[in-house]
């Protein structure tokens, strides 16, 4: 029997409490969305359940894209494999020492303790063999030392996975390769992670840390992907299986099994990839993402159409030399608890989480949360929450607020609830200003893209507060992260530390390093099914003033002449730091990003309606208006019935089951041709 050409794409994103599954039919552009509970003990089961709930025929699926924080959780919960380290003789402690620093939020704690290590010191061994700072061999690698080290680690210490990292190996991986070969010969069942296979950049602790985390999670990640692949295949799936990367793009499941490191911080990546896609479709160069879930608020800058990435990330206190989006998080979301501290109103950092959850969920929560404030302010219809699947206990929420916040403060209940929003907002304003100021921008040149369950509820308020001219609310904001994953390309990043001054750099030598990195990226893409002709290779240099530690990533083309690179560097430096200097420049890393373009989900354009939004009007509700700081009547609209070209003025509530857009007086909503809600100031408020 034949079945139709596969034309369905599935995106499945595992979160802390829910698995989100999004189905896209590439013929009709129709999307469908379902949630299933996360199953931490057997995580693949939650994924398969969510897919089952969607009812998708897996034989029709051409592409399955998956976002998972399994690797992250393995580290946080210390559930990885028993890991050993082989380093240089005299330097076995590189990983355990780190850079010696205490996190700055603990700098006044004279009793600070490091979190439990991933590796016992007895499982760290130094072997003879040493390179100098130019990668020249000072002492040959001693094969007997390596074999003996492997024997001790495996047979005496019970290690199942080994990280190998030597000083200066980024310039000359030969010793690491030899060591890996010797270990694999002796113990083929042991996983070996080699630093220069993962990243060829300088700084031994950062490279070792990246390698150790890779070694630590690789076996469990591999088992997980194998299970999931088998489960999907059983149901007839025969398409391409991709996994999201932390710094944008995706990789095939095969690559993910050998480079699980690139998945660890991929949790928020889907939303950001989606945001960049929306930015391009709408012609907005500068966008701020504003993603609010139950416990946190994440924001990321999209600048000139591209999300800001960093080449060094952190997991707990472990540095990771992997590209990752530069996301700022405030520990405040819908579940954050409001409380009084010596008479001052505080929001978070404690969260009621999913269980017991906010008071209004009626699951035993007794402490008022941001969600309870939203219900009390009238923004959430207690009868229509999650499309009516869950009746909210609005009276209990109100009572908790009255007792615990309003009365002690001597305020009315609405004023107290509005105060909770004010406090949350004041903190958010600070964080958003900072992330834009650091990039050298005024926040008022950005649009705000609101998603996550509570994003559209707060974003118009934030925009009002900061003078941000526009809020964009995508369709189904609470499923936006999963939708965004559908827009991910297949990506691989390859880097080489070169550390030469720009003036002294031998152009031919640079070209050959670039060529080597490009060949590696192209080969990786080819192995992931991207034909050479379709691979895009982007080149960049990390450049800095000689003597400084931090660098800027300068995109470069074919022309690598010093004056061309210098001009590009200075333009960026001026934008970021407000000045340039005459000092010598140093090239630190060469980077090649290989991109295999995957066809993006088209944003379907809808025909304009008659422009009369009253067709979508479902009623009215009393709610708190921040424009006038009073309870007033809000018009209520059903988002599903709004059509392109519609316009309406606040105060208004636009419901769509899993989320509500709250529009205050002085704000106007327009529906664009793609169905996005664009919230701006009314002409009167602008004047």
């Amino acid at each position, binding site marked *: 029997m034949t079945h139709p050409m596969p034309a369905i794409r599935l995106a499945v994103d595992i979160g802390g409490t829910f698995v989100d599954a999004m189905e896209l039919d590439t013929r009709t552009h129709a999307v469908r969305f379902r949630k299933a509970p996360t199953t931490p003990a057997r995580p693949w089961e939650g994924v398969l359940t969510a897919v089952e709930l969607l009812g998708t025929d897996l034989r029709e699926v051409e592409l399955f894209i998956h976002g998972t924080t399994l690797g992250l959780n393995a580290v946080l919960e210390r559930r990885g494999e028993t890991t050993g380290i082989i380093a240089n003789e005299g330097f076995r402690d590189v990983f355990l020492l780190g850079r010696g620093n205490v996190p700055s939020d603990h700098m006044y704690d004279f009793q600070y303790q490091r979190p439990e290590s991933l590796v016992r010191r007895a499982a760290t061994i130094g072997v003879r063999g040493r390179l100098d700072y130019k990668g020249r061999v000072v002492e040959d690698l001693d094969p007997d030392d390596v074999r003996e080290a492997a024997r001790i680690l495996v047979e005496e210490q019970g290690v199942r996975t080994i990280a190998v990292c030597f000083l200066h190996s980024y310039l000359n991986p030969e010793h690491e390769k030899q060591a890996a070969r010797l270990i694999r010969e002796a113990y083929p069942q042991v996983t070996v992670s080699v630093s220069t296979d993962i990243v060829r950049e300088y700084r031994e602790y950062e490279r070792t840390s990246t390698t150790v985390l890779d070694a630590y999670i690789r076996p469990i990640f591999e088992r997980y992907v194998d299970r999931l692949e088998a489960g999907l295949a059983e149901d007839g799936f025969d398409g391409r299986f991709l996994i999201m990367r932390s710094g944008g793009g995706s990789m095939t499941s095969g690559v993910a099994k050998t480079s699980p490191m690139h998945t660890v911080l991929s949790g928020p990546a889907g939303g950001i990839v989606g945001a960049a896609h929306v930015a391009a479709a709408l012609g907005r160069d500068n966008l701020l993402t504003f993603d609010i879930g139950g416990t946190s608020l994440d924001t990321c800058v999209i600048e000139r159409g591209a999300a800001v990435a960093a080449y060094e990330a952190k997991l707990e206190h472990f540095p990771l030399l992997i590209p990752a989006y530069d996301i700022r998080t405030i520990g405040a979301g819908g579940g954050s608890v409001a409380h009084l501290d010596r008479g001052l109103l505080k929001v978070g950092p404690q969260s009621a989480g999913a269980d017991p959850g906010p008071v209004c969920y009626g699951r035993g929560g007794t402490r008022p949360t941001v969600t309870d404030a939203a219900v009390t302010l009238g923004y959430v219809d207690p009868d229509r929450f999650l499309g009516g699947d869950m009746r909210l206990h609005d009276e209990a929420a109100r009572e908790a607020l009255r007792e615990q916040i309003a009365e002690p403060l001597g305020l009315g209940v609405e004023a107290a609830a509005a*105060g909770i929003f004010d406090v949350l907002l004041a903190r958010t304003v600070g964080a958003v200003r900072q992330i834009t100021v650091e990039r050298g921008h005024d926040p008022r040149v950005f649009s705000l893209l609101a998603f996550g369950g509570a994003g559209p509820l707060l974003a118009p308020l934030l925009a009002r507060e900061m003078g941000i001219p526009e809020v964009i609310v995508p369709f189904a904001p609470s499923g936006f992260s999963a939708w965004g994953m559908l827009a991910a390309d297949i990506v691989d990043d390859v880097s080489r530390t070169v550390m030469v001054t720009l003036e002294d750099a031998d152009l031919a030598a640079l070209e050959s390093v670039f060529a080597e990195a490009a060949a590696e990226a192209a080969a990786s893409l080819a192995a992931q099914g991207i034909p050479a002709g379709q691979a895009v290779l982007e080149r960049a240099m990390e450049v800095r003033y000689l003597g400084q530690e931090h660098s800027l990533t300068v995109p470069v083309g074919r022309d690598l002449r010093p004056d061309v690179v210098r001009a590009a560097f200075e333009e960026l430096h001026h934008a970021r730091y407000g000045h340039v200097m005459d000092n010598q420049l140093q090239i630190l890393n060469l980077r090649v990003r290989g991109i295999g373009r995957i066809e993006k989900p088209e944003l379907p354009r809808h025909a304009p309606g008659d422009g009369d939004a009253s067709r979508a009007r479902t009623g009215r509700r009393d709610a708190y208006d921040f424009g006038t700081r009073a309870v007033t009547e809000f018009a209520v609209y059903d988002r599903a019935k709004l059509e392109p070209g519609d316009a309406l003025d606040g105060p208004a509530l636009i419901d769509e089951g899993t989320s509500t857009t709250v529009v205050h007086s002085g704000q106007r909503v327009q529906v664009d041709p793609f169905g996005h809600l664009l919230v701006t100031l009314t002409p009167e408020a602008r004047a």
Partner: protein
Amino acid sequence: MSEANVRLDGATAEVVRSYLLAAAEEMRATLIRTSFNPVIYEVHDFGLSMYDADLRLVAEATGLTFFLGANDFSLAKGVEYVGRENLHRGDIVLLNYPYWNAAHSYDATLFAPVFQPDPADPEADGTLVGFLCVRAHWMDLGAKDPGYVLDSTDMHQEGLIFPGTKVFSRGEPVREIHELIRFNSRMPDLVIGDLHAQVAALRTGERRLLEILDKFGRPTVDAAVQRMVEDGEARTRAALAALPQGTWTAEDWVDDDGITEDPVKMRVTVTIADGRFTVDFDGSAPATPGPINMPFGATVALCKVILKSLTSPDEPSNHGTTVPLEVRAEPGTLFHAVYPQPTFTLWTGIVAVELILKALAQGMPDRVPASSGGDVPGFMMVGTHPDTGQMFAVSNNDLVGWGATPDHDGMNAATHVSGSAGRSTPIEVLEARTGMFFERLEMRTDSGGAGRHRGGVGLRREIRFTTPGEFLSVIKKTRSRPWALEGGLEPDPNQVIVFPGTDREARVSTKRVKVEPGDRVTLLTAGGGGHGDPRERDPEAVRRDVAEGYVSAEAAREIYGVDDG
């Protein structure tokens, strides 16, 4: 700020507080974004703070611990020197006179008065509503030696001094002063660049403070500030009341003053009583001929760090949080240098942090850890790079074992408690930028003080020089052991051994030595002091330490009484 009689609810107060803190953090982001010198934007060697018109601290941004408390002192001195009546809208004042600036001469404080313009008379200064202050480390202001000055004997060898001098007047740069700075620095571009970065941070803070006043109205802001200050003071007093009450004295020694070899005595008496925290340095040595003396403001700042760690480690500071602090030190002594006593290597303050903890530990052994190695073991190499022919001066702060506490072992090899957010420099960077090759960097077995809880272990670092140059050892605590608590044992002190195994072998503390290729230096950094009787240590923990190589089998047997044959 002015008398205000507004009713302020706890929500509005918190919102105003958040905005003020966010303004300070935005000043910080601006400084980092625009500064020229890596010590500012990488080491974060700066302090930014915001004050009301009565010079009360309102908000500060995260920065170097010692710098934060110092601004309050400098601002008061600077305003007093210039005179309020001589301050106008748009003025910015520079201060680095050590005895007023609470720091050595290379830490430059810039402060600005903030005036709220009067809409009726926009040309006039308007009302003085507050002050902003930014302190940052400048790379060079023309002291006698480049880099660190280890042996100055008076202030005038330590660079160009500004007692409170306008660098901007009514919004316009004072060109003569900028040129004076330029012509007196070995690195004029960096220094002028950093001056402008500090100005940018002040302007950002000024804009935001005025916006906040516009948004909420001055009475509301004043009431919120008043409430923050009262709250800060109440928090500190409540935290002090919860601590053991009493008076405790401790003594300790700084190795030497950089000129002579004589150890220098430190003595402190700490009193917690009646909601006050009093730190008295009576009995400490007179000011030394060499530059290890502390300006009094720097002494006060270090006491603020201790008070904060004891009472409000997680809360932003304001004027109220340090009201209960009183610091005493006789003028002309180690902790209260007076003109023209030298102060360049005032890192005595690092050793003094532990001195105060040592006193406190007598009264609250259940709250204070034992000594954490005693000091920050720093070193630097100066030379000419063989690849570039350019001069380099690269330093590193090494790691020490932290002191054991009543509840757990001290952390192994970490940055000293006095500035624990600082990071050590990678081997790959040190080898590429200097003429040093490292033969070993490893934790040292048996270097942590034994105890029921063990002090963290220190390091062994072995350096071989590959190019000629100078090696600078910067450490003030090598001759006396880090102290232990409650019957714990004291570990060996820090040691810097130059030319080990040769006839030139010597143990040094703060010292500049010439080195040639093939010469070696070994650094042994101290571990932390132990806490409690080692014989009471859980034998399982001892066995684990032996397996991990932190404790030898021999020490396990001899000291801990754990013998696993």
